[in-house]
């Protein structure tokens, strides 16, 4: 095989491999992704058994801990619909009432169960003083 033909074959193989890998990447990212929804969107769209990434604010007075289960409500940033979540797993330090959180939940017959260790609390600090409403009141 002459050198230029060899190069063309190599380039074709490399590009084909890249195309296959890119297709796999795109396919799996769409199939494995969880839709990111606000509480009001989740209330409208939730389908049993499917995972969603719920983003909202922890409702004041809603946090209860019973054994290893943490129950809390999540509402839209602007208020409105509240989604009750039962969560098990690591709770980040900044988690508290009024804070913005992200948690992966599954609709289990009208009850939203948080995926283990999926709770993320947006760190308000790094870098901004938390507004008074976000702090814990006794």
């Amino acid at each position: 095989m002459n050198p230029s033909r060899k190069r063309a074959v190599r380039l074709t193989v490399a590009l084909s491999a890249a195309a296959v890998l890119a297709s796999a990447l795109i396919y799996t990212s769409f199939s494995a992704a969880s839709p990111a929804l606000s509480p009001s969107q989740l209330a409208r769209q939730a389908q049993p058994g499917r995972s969603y990434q719920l983003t909202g604010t922890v409702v004041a007075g809603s946090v209860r801990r019973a054994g290893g289960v943490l129950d809390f409500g999540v509402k839209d940033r602007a208020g409105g619909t509240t989604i009750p979540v039962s969560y098990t797993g690591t709770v980040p330090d900044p988690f508290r009432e009024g804070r913005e959180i992200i948690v992966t939940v599954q609709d289990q017959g009208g009850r939203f169960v948080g995926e283990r260790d999926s709770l993320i609390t947006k760190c308000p600090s790094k870098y901004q003083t938390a507004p008074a409403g976000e702090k814990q009141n006794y």
Partner: protein
Amino acid sequence: MAALGHTCLLLALAVCAYGIGASLYGARRGRPELCESGRRSVYALAGILTVAFAVLEVAFLRNDFTFNTVADTSSRTTPALYRAAAVWSSQEGSLLLWAWLLSLWSSLALFLVRRRMREVAAYATAVLLGLAGFFVTLMLIYATPFATTHPAPAEGAGLDPLLRFPTMVIHPPVLYSGYTLCTIPLAFGVGALLARRVDADWIRTTRRFAFAAWLLLGTGILLGARWSYSVLGWGGYWGWDAVENASLMPWLTGTALLHSLMIQEKRGMLKVWNMSLVLATGTLAIMGTFLVRSGILSSIHAFGGATLGVPFVALIGVLVTGSVYLVVSRAKLLRSEHRLEALLSRESIFLANNLVLVGLCFVIFWGTYFPLISEALSGREQSVGPPWFDRYTVPLALALVLLSGIGPVIAWRRATLANARRNFTAPVLLALATLAALLAVGAQRKPLALAMFACAAFVVGSIAQEFFRGTRARRAIARERVPIALLALVRRNRRRYGGYVVHVGMAVLFVGVAASSSFQHAAELALFPGQSTRVGGYTIRYVRPTATITPRQDAAHTGSTLSLGAVLDVSKRGRHVATLRPSEGYYDSGEAAQGTVGHLIGGQAVSHISMSAGLTRDVWTAIAPNISSSPLRRIVTAGNRTLPPDQALVAIAYLARSYLSKPAAAQFHFIVSPLVMWIWIGGVIVFGGGLIAIWPAPSTVRRAERARSPARAAGELAQA
């Protein structure tokens, strides 16, 4: 003081504008005195921004709450070390740190090339001043560090307790140094393209900065991982968070660049690829900075109230468009001098390594920006989690480690079978022996981890063989003793052997990652004093509760008002292993609305984890005491009602005593992870190897000195 800081920013902007104009005009018209003036304006910028940074630092150390940023991110109860570091905990302070570091590194780079590459350096000066001007403009329009309020509040909000950790004092400056250093090769790359001088000179000049950027970015990433592991209370060191990913991407392309530059130096190949990597690394560094500040992606690390999206998008747009235009329009100049001769050659392995690194970067880029991509394509914002990242990054990381063992020992141009047999027999045997030993102890249930251990053994084997052969050859020639011969070998070729040490460090680091993520045991449960549980072969017993109320003098020296915790006894097969004392610190919120007592502990609560770290495993513990239990809540409520502010600590003391005398069940998080320590040891090895590689070789220093001496003598003669 604020007026001085603000004036510095205005002056800095004027200097940037002048420097850009002088450099560009000087380069276009061939006026070296203007290019020189442009370069000096970078030094002036560094001086001005140093004053601005000092003004802000002094304001933090003096608790000058007239500065809004000081009032928002510091307080009198924040320990002095963390007050000093609080400067870069705010959006505006971190922008100032970015611009300041950029000006310092730019000054150093331009000082080093002051007698060479005048035209390229002039364009590079304009690019660097353009970037600095962009950040100064952001501080003047969107987030000024010198905004003030009169009268000043009596007390500040305090630095977030999560950031009161020694690693966080140095993590941002190190990471930002890495980011800003990434822009130096970018600037010189753009300069070389504009000046049409794409020979090896600009690469030789900026290679050391590319290496320093890589080293500091990597160190910053590792320091962040260490902070996450030791402070964040979840026991992990990497979570595929958008901001973590943003720092990893330029590091990956930078790693690819450091390898492919060698091919360009040796064989004159991959010029377009290298230029693209230089530009991509610089752009990704700016994108990393943008991601934290734009608020476009959800991240635990993002700055609150981020509003700088639009200016950053504009800057990134200019960088990407400009880069593509320059590379395409100069494609003829960047033509390769040679072609790849054989698939089994060092060039091919380096190319494969580059493809894997860029592939990794692409995967991470796709996953990180997937919420935006999916919204643009499907109208619905979706995101992918750690399992998706792991699916792609784990095999790619395996390939990378394997290639890092093959690359150093395979021949340039074309490897023969004899060459392959000579170089690979020992490393392959070591890898197989490792595999067999691990299979014998029952590690087959985690095949990917097993593969990583074998690949790492292969790398260590191939590098050890290189050191062995080099030392043996040196001994044969110079008849030196082994340590002397080894030292001389490394000293004479620091880049090569420093690079080998880096490879070993990365292999060790990956062993730590594979072991700790595959063979970890964890438990989360509530325990009363006296109760115990078993985790990963260890028995952990909750001995007794602890409580301290020592404002400004707490055990961790972080400034917490109250700290509640536990004493834990860790044992294995009946033998005592360690006594651990995890606790949770409660901080003053400064909010009068929470009551005289409530505000003292109403701020952030932070886990102070406790662990027994060892070479074989870490036992990691964290506690979440139930501070909201009814009895404790009643004490705070009663204190709020009855106690004046100067006696409020009495209620906190009573609360602590109540917690000790009638302890409720506390929530614990226990993790037993094998080989975590090797992640940090691997990081230190990488850093050490990096320092060896970046340090100027003695011969280079002597050459530079020799080159300077005649020039100096000639100059003196001319003056005489």
